């Protein structure tokens, strides 16, 4: 490299890629590094959810709403190529209790600005003809969208490079250098790179990167499995999930939670999630969980019983104890910014999170108050 970049982004997943594009569009010269390749971590293990439906009113919902629009702006900006589709979400209730809490949620979401529609059984059937007859109530969210996350990260990185950014793959960070309370650069297996701004966008591994600088972040992996069917004719038209999923997402429990999330994709496959459990970076496949996922999916869509399962994969969501992402400057080191901990919502939240980071680095007001996401909140929690 001829001269030092203005900012180094560690991590070429969706969060790193969108951050790099935001900073590049704001005029900075960026260098993105990754120990693997583009989108080889959690980004490659998700469904590509861009959801507003699964969030209760609060800062994360504000972030999600802005981010959902930002996704379509990115498509416009770089020319797409990542299967972005506003397919709409359908949340169904399978019990009286579930229905009551769903109605309470949609009412609150509407106040917060979400298009959350309580729908009748006739509308439900029209949206998803193969839905189980035991399901009679639901809510429809036309804003819910989806993209192919690896392609999204790769195309965003491609655009970043076309605008002057650099990418170095296979660069394992071994040290982060600091001077007088500010970061100065990174030492990697591919050489040393210096810049006054370093963004930690390493998702599930963000705590380890923070530690290299002498700071800390309480981000832990939350394991999840996804089933992928053989390509099939279109039988599922939206992202359909059980109202219990919303409760599971916000659960602090370490044990296994699982609720059906079923959706068809543009490639003809059907994706089935979603399990969550905190078991560390545990490898391999737990076939009992696959079985639970299959059962729950068939309960929603009995037609799935005859559909073939083709693949199953596992990912580790980056999980922070209060379920909020970590977006902002490190409380100890100046110039060290964290953009991580988005759990299962990283794809959806990435563009707006990148915007917050960018506005923070340029020290200018943003579309929302970033304080709830500040890394400093953990230091305070530890102190009190």
């Amino acid at each position, binding site marked *: 490299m001829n001269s030092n970049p203005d900012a180094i982004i560690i991590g070429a997943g969706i969060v790193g890629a969108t951050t790099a594009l935001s900073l590049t569009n704001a005029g900075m010269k960026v260098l993105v590094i990754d120990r693997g*390749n583009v989108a080889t971590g959690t980004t490659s293990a998700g469904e590509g959810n861009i959801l507003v439906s699964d969030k209760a009113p609060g800062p994360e919902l504000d972030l999600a709403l802005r981010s959902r629009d930002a996704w379509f702006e990115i498509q416009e900006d770089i020319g797409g190529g990542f299967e972005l589709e506003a397919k709409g979400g359908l949340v169904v209730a399978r019990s009286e209790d579930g229905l009551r809490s769903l109605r309470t949620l949609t009412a609150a979401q509407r106040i917060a600005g979400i298009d959350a529609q309580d729908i009748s059984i006739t509308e439900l059937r029209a949206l998803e003809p193969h839905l189980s007859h035991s399901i009679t109530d639901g809510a429809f969210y036309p804003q819910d969208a989806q993209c192919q996350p*690896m392609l999204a990260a*790769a195309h965003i990185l491609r655009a970043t490079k076309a605008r002057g950014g650099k990418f170095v793959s296979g660069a394992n960070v071994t040290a982060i250098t600091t001077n007088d309370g500010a970061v100065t650069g990174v030492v990697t297996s591919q050489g040393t790179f210096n810049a006054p701004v370093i963004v930690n966008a390493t998702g599930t591994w963000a705590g380890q990167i923070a530690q290299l600088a002498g700071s800390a972040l309480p981000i832990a992996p939350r394991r999840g499995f996804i089933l992928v069917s053989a*390509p099939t004719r279109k039988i599922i038209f939206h992202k359909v999930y059980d109202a219990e999923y919303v409760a599971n997402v916000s659960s602090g429990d370490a044990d296994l939670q699982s609720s059906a999330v079923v959706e068809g994709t543009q490639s003809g496959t059907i994706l089935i999630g979603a399990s969550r459990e905190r078991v560390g970076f545990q490898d391999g496949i737990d076939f009992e969980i696959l*079985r639970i996922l299959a059962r729950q999916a068939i309960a929603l869509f009995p037609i799935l019983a005859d559909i073939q399962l*083709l693949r199953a994969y596992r990912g580790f969501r980056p999980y922070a104890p209060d379920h909020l992402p970590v977006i902002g400057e490190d409380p100890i080191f100046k110039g060290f910014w964290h953009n991580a901990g988005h759990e299962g919502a990283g794809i959806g939240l990435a563009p707006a999170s990148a915007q917050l980071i960018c506005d923070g680095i340029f020290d200018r007001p943003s579309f929302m108050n970033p304080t709830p996401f500040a890394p400093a909140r953990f230091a305070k929690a530890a102190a009190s």
Partner: protein
Amino acid sequence: MELRHQVIVIGGGPAGLNAAKYAANAGCNVALLDSAPRLGGQYWRHTGIESDDQSRHHNFDQGSLLMDAIIANPRITIYPNTTIWSASVINGEVVLRYKDGAFITSRLILATGAYDRSLPFPGWDIPGVMTAGAAQSLLKGSGVIAGKRIVVAGSGPFLLPVAAGLSSHGGKVVGLIEAAGKFAWLPEILSLLQNPAKISEGLGYLLTLRKAKVEMRFKQAVISAHADSDGLLESITVANIDAEFHITSTYSINCDVAAIGWGFTPDTSMAGALGLKEEVAADGSVVVAVDENQRASSAHSELHIFAAGEITGIGGSALSLAEGAIAGLAAADSRTNLRDLKKIRRKARRFALTLQRVYPIALGWKSWLTPETIICRCEEVTHAAIQSAFTELDADDARSAKLMTRCGMGMCQGRICSRNVADLLDSPDADRIKGVYRPIISPITLGELAQDGLL
């Protein structure tokens, strides 16, 4: 249902049959699993009809004796039509799931065999273009001649029995097209003569082909295929090629079937699901790494997992039989005959390596491709799509290429295209071995997965 056996053998071809026989004769209670309805594997594939003429097979007498002995052996339980969809290690034992339950063992012998290696070229997805093994299986398994005007092409000794079998059973073979030179075997003559049985087998095929007036052409390859208005194969373009497989001139042949084989690819899908150590063999294929006793290397060192036959390296039936016997004895902790068997194995391995030197596959096949050529048949991914993922999206390894183009993501799970994609990306060995972890070995329905009582 949970079924426990002292030793479980997967695959009913030569290696698996011999593994089961030797393990049982050494005193073990053995289960022999195969996804097909009848034993024999690809090599001894047969119709199962008593009155049928089994002369379609070379060496079928040896196979029949072995299969009869297995069927009669009270220590061996045969499970035909049994497809294992997942394999994993739980509490120090291997759990092999099939649609109604699971087999459990601490001593497993994998003999999952191989399938034809295919090289992509424009039109290879047209119905009528098939592997040499497909033409062979139609004949041996169903007694059907694949077409009316058949070209057999590719490279390697397997083309001879395929062409000879078709022509001696009434098929019209309008050409046998071999990429290697007519005298490619000459430098290896001394080594080849160590195996007179194989030489005489080969001469037998040549005699059959001469009688049937099948024209043999050398240093040529099928480089494109063309469809008629119904979308069926009408003609092929054949090229004269140099040692690097680059095209020097072309001509065309009318045919309704082109049966093309470029040697074989080991089927390591189950070994991969179990996380067994793999390596890249001399011919470039990914194989299961084994020790002197055919034992594979697993992170679970308490397990006794063996691999035998084509999945440890392409080598033919004689090598498979020897490896199967050694694996069977080793799984039973027996040392009887081991030295003699290892001598046979050594000789068969040497012969296999000789054949690989006679019939090398050069990377010049990449020059046959056009941007529109399909590379991944399942997901219809073109050469251009893979190239642009590589140049524009940094997809320089198989996993990235897969996730960005969908190549290798379809129904066959990359079995046909992954080696070709690795060649197109010039992947290093480490990338080829690492592959992609595929826990679902064979598709099952979600309803089957959701059943009770599965592990």
